[in-house]
């Protein structure tokens, strides 16, 4: 079964896998998480605002993003981003967009919907008295949100946000459909070049497994530490 298992191919391709592939995957995960949280928090505030058009718009956006597969969204944005860029920069041609930018936009926009729901739950978990107290102290809406509600909501939701980040980390493997050299893409390219599918895919699975398991273990530890004692 493992008699002609070639460990050497894994060792030889380690620099390519990690330097080219994993760097892409981790950078994409980190930036998409940051963008997703910022954009998602804005969406959550829109959804919870008293202004009907804003909350309907945000709810529609979130529901749209959550009813379509990520793969379809990756394709959508791969073709849409050049046109969006053209529109934003008012140029006469659709602009050229690299694979990294395209997938970063996709993941930010897509994950924002999921981060929105997490932040919404976080904001809703804050007792209403906090908002009233802030208003009684003369704070306006932006100050209340920025200094009173969001810091607490964020702290309450840190474990869930990080869990979503682990899911995002696994989901970035789907950029494979655009033939991008992320970690899985790199493994797949070597696998197909050398005809070593078994070794490369098993190794890729092992690496994803180890990282996700370690990360979720850390999240559990963190969860115990940051929990606010009430």
């Amino acid at each position, binding site marked *: 079964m493992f008699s002609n298992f070639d460990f050497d191919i894994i060792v030889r391709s380690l620099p390519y896998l990690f330097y080219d592939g994993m760097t892409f995957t981790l950078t994409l995960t980190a930036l998409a998480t940051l963008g997703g949280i910022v954009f998602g928090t804005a969406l959550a505030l829109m959804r919870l605002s008293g202004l009907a058009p804003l909350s309907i718009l945000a709810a529609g956006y979130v529901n749209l993003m959550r009813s379509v597969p990520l793969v379809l969204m990756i394709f959508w944005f791969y073709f849409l981003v050049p046109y969006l860029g053209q529109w934003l920069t008012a140029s006469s041609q659709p602009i050229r967009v690299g694979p990294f930018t395209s997938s970063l936009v996709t993941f930010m926009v897509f994950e924002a919907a999921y981060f929105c729901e997490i932040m919404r739950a976080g904001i809703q978990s804050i007792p209403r008295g906090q908002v009233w107290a802030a208003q009684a102290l003369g704070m306006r809406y932006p100050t209340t949100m920025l200094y009173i509600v969001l810091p607490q909501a964020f702290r309450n939701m840190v474990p869930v946000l990080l869990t979503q980040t682990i899911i995002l980390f696994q989901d970035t493997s789907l950029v494979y459909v655009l033939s991008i050299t992320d970690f899985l893409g790199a493994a797949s390219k070597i696998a197909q070049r050398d005809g070593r599918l078994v070794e490369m895919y098993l190794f890729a699975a092992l690496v*994803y497994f180890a990282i996700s398991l370690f990360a979720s273990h850390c999240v559990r530890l963190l969860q115990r530490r940051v929990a606010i004692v009430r």
Partner: protein
Amino acid sequence: MNYHWNWGIFWQISPDASHTYLQTLLLGTAWTLTTAFAAWVLALTFGSLVGVIRTTPHPWLVRVGNAYVELFRNVPLLVQMFLWYFVLPELVPRGFGTWLKQLPDASFYTAVVALGFYTSARVAEQVRAGITSLASGQRLAALALGLTLPQAYRYVLLPMAYRIVLPPLTSEFLNVIKNSAVALTIGLMELTARARSMQEFSFQVFEAFTAATFIYIAINIVVTFAMRRTERRVAVPGYIGMAPPATAE
């Protein structure tokens, strides 16, 4: 935008020479739904089994269940698909491996198995959560009445647990439908793959993806609506605020 819109494209004959593009999309929808349903049956069966053994009083069974869930949850679905499709036939005895590779619709069976096991880990989490949310007196009372452990699960714990976890199970079902799109990487011609090939042959990118998006939204609405009705019907009376509405996750 200098994009050439052509919504009439859906009624043109696709390169397979017998169907219009719209028909190819609908065929893709049928594959998406078939894959999702088959995978869901598998996921529900194995998920329930693993969820149950994680709540039994046998430590080693619990450990096996936990390991199962961690294994299938911490590897990306795409990688799992590749493992089932490319790696498994190489690791089994040669004859069996060749048979697997030559199977007609191999990508469909692989997609069902991969998606089924991937989702079963999530279902197991939900089922376990449902069982542990029950008051421990229910299990004790069942055992005190002389039911065996399997009987206690069959007649007391599981009927309650399923009713409680129906809303999260609905989101998992919606996830299975969406995740079936990943199977396009192993060549399953489901909805997203059909939209992609329509885009490649006709160059009408945005029409193809718009149509696929609308079909996914329609499926989502139908499933959510049907499950809301079921949830209301089976909601356990006396629990706080009934079950929260199902949301896709």
